[in-house]
């Protein structure tokens, strides 16, 4: 019977083609608009490290006091001073911890015909590789003792290894960064969490994958400037040393705390540390600290662009209007067939049969709308690059799950819209119809 109804439904699509076309267009457009914007929203609100997002935390320490900063609203600065980062690294109160910052590194190829080029590079601690689950193709991370020794070692990314060594195992070779040689201890496989949770502050959540990792201690020793933001509450004075010992914030910091109780203990430690700084006279205010995990941090830093949110909302409104439209048109379509319904009811069809028949018919319309919506979504996803930054646009893709979702939304929405018209159709009095016509 289902197959027969589906056949009836598909056949009735041709019955009053104008009404049907209107509905299919409305559903197609509505679904396509919402799916296109949803694809962007999904890309930007993605959880970049689901297996650990509740174990990795960003500690924040208020080193500026309550009345500094443009719109502080009582929140500590969103990066750390070098002083605090080094102290937290020294105390080692978390299972793993790392300070990090984007370094300005250029690669000088040994091949004299190649010009120097830049890659995204970071200075951080050995712990970071394990914390962030960075996969290795060859070799491994450097060791904690190499951190302490400010060793000239580096881990490079797969893309850079392909470029410099044609993908061969380059462990033990040298790479020249900013005119100095570093010994390669490992080659990281493709690692590209999106959004870039580990450095939201400097990337706004989207950046090319890191290709060069060197020890934080080495980067600082060579006075490598940060490639990211640097915010000062007061003039730091002249020269590198006064800058790193100033209250300027520019260092990112992450800790790994596997359990809730460890997180609580670490937060207490942060408050204790701040109180100590207050006693020593560096802070002239009560401890003000935060400890946010990955999800909370991305939310707090508003990584999902405003454009993505607003356009998603507008498209959902759009879909709603398309559905209201569909309710009206389905009502017209179904009520035109009152006499047909009357005849069927008189011949013994139950109300339930009428329900099933018309809902299946609506689903057929939804299916047609979904196919059209899929085409339009494809065009829309291509058009996303017009609206959003290329970094984000390339994340919005038409994958299998989006295709299925598009069809599902189209059919479900249409069936939902069909409930009222179907109910009306099922109310048709058989005798009445037979009599008057």
């Amino acid at each position, binding site marked *: 019977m289902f197959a027969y109804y589906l056949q009836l439904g598909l056949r009735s699509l041709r019955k009053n083609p104008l009404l049907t076309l209107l509905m299919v267009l409305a559903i197609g457009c509505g679904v396509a608009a919402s799916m296109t914007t949803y694809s962007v929203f999904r890309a930007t609100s993605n959880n970049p490290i689901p297996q650990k997002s509740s174990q990795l935390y960003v500690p924040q320490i208020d080193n500026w006091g309550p009345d500094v900063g443009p719109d502080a609203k009582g929140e500590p600065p969103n990066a750390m001073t070098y002083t605090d980062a080094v102290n937290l690294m020294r105390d080692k109160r978390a299972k793993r911890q790392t300070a990090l910052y984007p370094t300005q590194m250029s690669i000088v190829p040994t091949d004299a015909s190649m010009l120097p080029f830049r890659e995204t590079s970071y200075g951080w601690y050995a712990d970071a590789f394990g914390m962030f689950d960075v996969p290795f193709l060859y070799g491994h991370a450097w060791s904690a003792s190499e951190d302490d020794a400010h060793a000239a070692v580096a881990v490079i990314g797969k893309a850079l290894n392909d470029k410099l060594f044609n993908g061969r195992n380059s462990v033990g070779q040298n790479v020249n960064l900013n005119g100095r040689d570093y010994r390669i201890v490992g080659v990281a496989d493709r690692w590209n969490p999106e959004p870039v949770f580990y450095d939201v502050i400097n990337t706004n959540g989207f950046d090319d994958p890191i290709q060069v990792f060197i020890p934080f201690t080495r980067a600082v020793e060579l006075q490598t400037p940060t490639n990211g933001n640097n915010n000062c509450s007061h003039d730091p004075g002249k020269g590198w040393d006064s800058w790193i010992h100033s209250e300027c914030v520019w260092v990112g910091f992450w800790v790994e705390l596997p359990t809730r109780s460890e997180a609580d203990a670490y937060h207490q430690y942060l408050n204790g540390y701040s109180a100590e700084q207050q006693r020593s006279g560096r802070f002239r205010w009560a401890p003000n600290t935060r400890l946010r995990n990955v999800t909370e941090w991305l939310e707090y830093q508003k990584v999902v662009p405003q454009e993505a949110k607003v356009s998603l909302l507008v498209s959902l409104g759009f879909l709603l209007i398309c559905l209201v439209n569909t309710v009206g048109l389905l009502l*017209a379509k179904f009520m*035109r067939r009152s006499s047909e319904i009357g005849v069927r009811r008189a011949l013994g069809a139950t109300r339930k049969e009428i329900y099933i028949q018309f809902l299946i018919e609506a689903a057929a319309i939804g299916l047609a709308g979904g196919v059209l919506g899929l085409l339009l979504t494809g065009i829309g996803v291509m058009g996303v690059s017009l609206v959003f930054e290329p970094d984000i646009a390339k994340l919005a893709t038409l994958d299998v799950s989006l295709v299925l979702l598009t069809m599902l939304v189209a059919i479900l929405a249409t069936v939902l819209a069909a409930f009222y018209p179907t109910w009306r159709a099922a109310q048709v009095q058989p005798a009445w119809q037979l009599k008057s016509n």
Partner: protein
Amino acid sequence: MMHIKPILAALRRHKAGTILIAMQIALTLAIVCNALFIISQRLERVHRPTGLVEGDLMAIQSRFVGVDEAKAGPLIKADLAALRQLPGVQDAIAINSYPLRGGGWSTGVRTDVDAKDSKGHTTQYFADEHTLPTMGLRLVEGRNFRSDEIIEADPQGVPDPAVVIVSKALADQMYPDGHALSKPIYIGDTKKPATIIGIVERLGVPWNASWSDKFYENSLIQPVQMTGAATNYLIRAKPGQLADVLKAAPAMLIKTNRMRVISSERGVRSFAQVREEAYKGDRGMALLMGVVCLVLLAITAAGIVGLTSFWVGQRRKQIGVRRALGATKGDILNYFLTENLLIGVAGVVIGALLAIGMNLWLVTQFEMARLSLTYVLAGVIALLLLGQGAVLAPAMRASRVSPVEATRSV
């Protein structure tokens, strides 16, 4: 117009359709109003002037490799000399940032040495006396820097300048009485005043985000040639020669010194490209909203046509009866137009309230501006016209129903 009573009575007979059309009009109005408002806001931003004469201007971002931050001074000097004597180049500067670039320096400024809080916020540009001619800025008061006033400085330690040039917006904010020339200005938390020696008509900040809109035209030019390894070259080509210079300038820089990185993506750009990339999001958002509005209006109109046609079909017999009893074609046409107008008015009243409510919610959520009532009014008129236009075809068809229909059974 005709008697509304019978229309209302008839509308009560098909409540569902009436409510659906009214709802559609209301929702469409709410969304179209807000979308048009967002479009106008975005376009306003896209057309903001930077104060630069943007034609014939280009930018190169370069970074020396293996050079200490403090030691790149002579290399930058050599670059500038090479660029300035290039055929087709009118002038060039090395500067820390420029309008619409995206990253830059900003600071609070004061006019009173003892003030604890800053009086305003401004961006800082560091470059030499070629800045005004290269950017094409218009000096409205005072003078340009002299070459002997330019100091070299490492970005890690920029000394307080003795003289500065400010944008008119910043001058007026610092000295509302309009006499900022030759007055002191304190940069950051310094105790050492800088004298304002020149005021340019307009100069935008490097950013175009909502947080920087509050001080969009507050700029400060300091007579400092930075010696950092990374710098931006702004180059003004002679009229009509930009296309050649876009190729010749980076080649010249590589020839002067190979140990540098000029990124392939954003390394060399004409100012037209800079502007386009800076406002990509705004422009795209406006486009998206525009498309949504058009499709939405089309769908709403189509919905009205569909439902009204259905009603006309249902009432052929009654229409025939009325025609047989002496109603003219005009009466029938009028009936449907009035009926639709009644539904439309109900829809736009609800829609206007929805539009304002939606905007208020957007204001609280996304720091958007308040919707001006002009938009709501324009939307109301547009939707009523759209509704009347949509109902015209079915109503015409209704008026053509012949009186004979009354005698037929359908």
